[in-house]
């Protein structure tokens, strides 16, 4: 089993990519994880059902923030519907860890929010 906290997680947590609020967003959504109080708001610029640009403001645990960061990098330029289909295993792959069931909600916070759009 891979270590629960990879260098990727630590890197993306301490230096999250694509944070902030893009000015030309077309869609936004917000989600709170009631279990731990993690919060995220995402901003997407969608042109022809493609994610042209995106950003987010997040507050949460290492896994939630790092997952938002890696998924946001992965999602740029891809179809919104394609990203919506990502599951916890794909997020775990991007983070280079295995995600325990207890932490699946953390890892999926960004995608749950995206699925509100």
């Amino acid at each position, binding site marked *: 089993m891979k270590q*629960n906290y990879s260098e990727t997680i630590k890197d993306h947590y301490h230096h999250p990519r694509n944070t902030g609020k893009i000015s030309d967003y077309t869609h936004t959504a*917000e989600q709170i994880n009631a279990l731990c*109080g993690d919060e995220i708001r995402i901003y997407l610029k969608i042109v022809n059902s493609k994610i042209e640009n995106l950003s987010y403001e*997040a507050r949460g*645990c290492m*896994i939630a923030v790092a997952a938002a960061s890696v998924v946001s990098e992965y999602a740029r330029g891809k179809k919104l519907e394609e990203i919506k289909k990502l599951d916890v295993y794909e997020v775990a792959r991007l983070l280079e860890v295995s995600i325990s069931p207890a932490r699946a909600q953390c890892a999926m916070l960004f995608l749950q929010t995206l699925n509100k759009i």
Partner: protein
Amino acid sequence: MFEKVFPILKRKINGQRLVYLDNASTAQKPESVLRAMDDFYRKHNANTHRGIHTLSQEATELYEGARDKVQKFINAGFREEIILTSGATEAINLVVWTWGHENIHAGDEILLSEMEHHSNIVPWQILAKKKRAKIKYAPIDGNGRLKLPSLIPLISPRTRIVSIAHISNVLGTINPIEKIIKTAHRKGANVLIDGAQAGAHIPIDVQKLDCDFYVLSGHKMYGPTGVGGLYGKKELLNLMPPYQTGGHMIKKVKAQFAPRSPTRSGSQNLDIAWADLPHKFEAGTANISAVIGLGAAIDFLSHFPSPGVGRVAAGQERSKAIRAIQNHESILTSYALKQMKKIPSLEIYGPQDAKDRIGVISFNLKGIPPHDLASILDSRGIAIRTGHHCAMPLHDKLGIESSARISLAIYNTKEDINKLTEGIRYAQRLLSFPRRRESSPRSWSMARLDARSGRA
């Protein structure tokens, strides 16, 4: 030594000895509690208060015997002042929706404190909204304590109730409730004490306290889940309408529900009559085995450190046992605070010493979100709680989103604390990421989200 008494402590978690430090959420159950519940289903199972047959009588005796134990444990004057509920939450809701509904009107005030659990906030908020009443919050000081000089002026002639925790479930603070009760009564307000965190840790004497209502949680006192207690002064309980209605709580019903049916138990009505106390507030078949389990848990607490199964402790014996528990936990709390303070970048919220507090210690580590700390500790067999601990207004006041919390019980040892502090240091080594600048958690501060948006 406690592995024999608490079977779960023999478990290995992720290959490690279980170090259970989440007792403020729920405590583990001693063998005697498990056996009492098992015995009930194996030997005595029947419904209470109705059957003429032997099993029903035995079930009733065991159930009512548990009520007597609760009464003695908190030194209530009368056994009918003890209402058995599904837990502390139901006990508070019962008071809010019966006493509160009858006695709180537009413009009246409800005084809570900033350190309350959601279960002692939200029911009052809903009632206040319905009745157009006002809620005030007594502030805590920098050490996480309620100070009388700032609380007392908040009790006004319009204050109908002061509803306050005996002990904070986040800070561990023991509140000066004797003085609060005295002052509130002098000013004409009633007082509810939320004792969910107190039952297993400090002596409770409701007659001496003179509180109007006192709430207990069974599963935090080494009893099973789904059971708790409400103490209420008889004269108040008698005037209150029932909370839920149905079987067990009724003396007489007719097919036609009369429009003049009573809302108060004292009302005379020919068509419907509520049962006497305490049954008026115990509609439906109770959680009988859990109530019996609670009785066994009280036996366990009352005889500590000797087992004393099935024997009701005398008053003196009981206070000696609780003092022994307090003594053990206080030494351990001092040790935990001392050891935790040695860890760099660890901030403890609330009182910094073991005086007037119990072993509930909330803290944060700089740069490591509590959730991730808890994951690392879990991998080493250590169970702690993280999040807002159902006290979001308190976390807002502390200026944090969440915290990590340890909470101690009688089976915890210095060795457990050592394991914890080793685990915390391990997490710091594992999760810190010193590359580039200072590794402050930008993700926490960068967010421009309003922490209060969309929250109750």
